[in-house]
């Protein structure tokens, strides 16, 4: 369930196993998170597109102190920020032992009915 109309295409996509991101229809700039207007040129003409799900780890952390009971059962878990090849940046889960700069591929898994992204290392990446 999306908390806003703006983000609905993203959350709907995740529920279908697809990663979506916004791109400016005028200048082509990929956006981070969900926006009403382009962060590069200001045009309020952003379209949602499917991403291939391939990218590079920008940063990561292994979480030991979880904020909720559902996640306490999962600790330790790795959270990553990944720069998709299309230019968007997404937060998701990763694997222990991953490193900044690793090439990764996304899949979608479900935790307590919530679809979440998991990035796995691309072999030979």
């Amino acid at each position: 369930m999306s908390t806003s109309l703006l983000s609905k295409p993203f959350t709907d996509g995740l529920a279908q196993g697809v990663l979506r991101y916004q791109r400016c229809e005028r200048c082509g700039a990929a956006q981070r998170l969900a926006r009403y207007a382009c962060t590069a040129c200001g045009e309020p003409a952003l379209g949602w597109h499917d991403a291939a799900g391939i990218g590079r780890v920008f940063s990561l952390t292994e979480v030991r102190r979880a904020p909720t009971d559902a996640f306490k059962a999962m600790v330790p878990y790795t959270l990553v920020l990944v720069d998709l090849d299309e230019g968007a940046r997404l937060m998701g889960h990763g694997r222990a032992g991953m490193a900044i700069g690793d090439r990764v591929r996304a899949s979608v898994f479900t935790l307590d009915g919530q679809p979440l992204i998991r990035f796995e290392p691309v072999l030979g990446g």
Partner: protein
Amino acid sequence: MQVYIAGAGNTRFGRLDGMGAVDLMAQAGQQAMDEAGVRRQDIDGVLCGYATTLPHLMLASLVSERMGLRPLYAHGMQMGGATGAGMVMLARELVRAGRCQRVLVLAGENRASGQSRDGAIQTLAQVGDADFEVPNGASVPAYYALLASRYLHEHGLSEADLAEFAVLMRHHAASHPDAQLSAPITVADVLASKPIASPLKLLDCCPISDGAVALVVSSQPSRHDGHPVALTGAGQAHHHQHVSAIADTLDMGASASARRAFDEAGTGLADIDYLAIYDSFTITLAVLLEELGVCPRGGSAQRLRDGAFGVDGATALNTHGGLLSFGHSGVGGGMAHIAEAYRQLARRAGARQIAPRRRALLHADGGVLSAHVSLILEQRA
């Protein structure tokens, strides 16, 4: 016209069982008014920080009623950790515009005793994006840990470098009778503390505290102030809200904010001899000191080891112990930096007083290096 900080007040920080958010604010507020030498009826403006333990539609009106104040201007504010500095900036604007003469700026909450630890952590985690970030089991330490991992990677630094900041803040807190944490710690203690979100351990993170801080921002310095402290510049910057949205980790808003404050004050970093910098985590201090230009990129820990940030250093830093050791009660925690900078410049720090300082740079951030506010304080003796 010149605008002054005329008084500061604070409660002890830590666990103060039985005290509600407004109890804490009233205690700090009374102390600030007493120190400023202003009477209740002299306060014509009230700015009040939010309290997570008391979500209220009109907190400034509530606090004013309880304290017997009848301001002609009052409201609450929400800028995360930057709220305190933001309120002082607005108080200065209200005085400069002639709207108010004496503004009571205050914040406090029973963040430690008024809710469960899990409750506090979950409330704070909501600063993340509700659809893209929070569902992942992310938390405020995790957001900052993502910045910390990247920072250590880019600069080839280690967790021991960040740990230095926790050790220094603890050392400074030891001299403040109201600080929450005062037992000395070492770099080894920080490294051995409980892992929270790598590379951050428990001692890289500020504690959760009860406590309140208040300031009087006025058109006049305190009557018994031999060393008046003026607010000579202020600036803000807001480049993003969420960690996933940061366009450039080397330009998150701190430098833009500080540049605006310096331009307004007609001064620069070379004239600064006291630093009051937000320190929710050790990484916060490192990246802010570097983006503000106090030290080269990746060089803040080395500058610390060289002694620049100690009480005898050229740019003494958070001599009360910061959020990391004085404590973090939300908005009040960020205001403690301002109270301490004022007291040091006004030479009212008592046994904690360091060698005379003339000009302080205060910088606070809210969210994940999201909302930035800078203030310049100058002693006008």
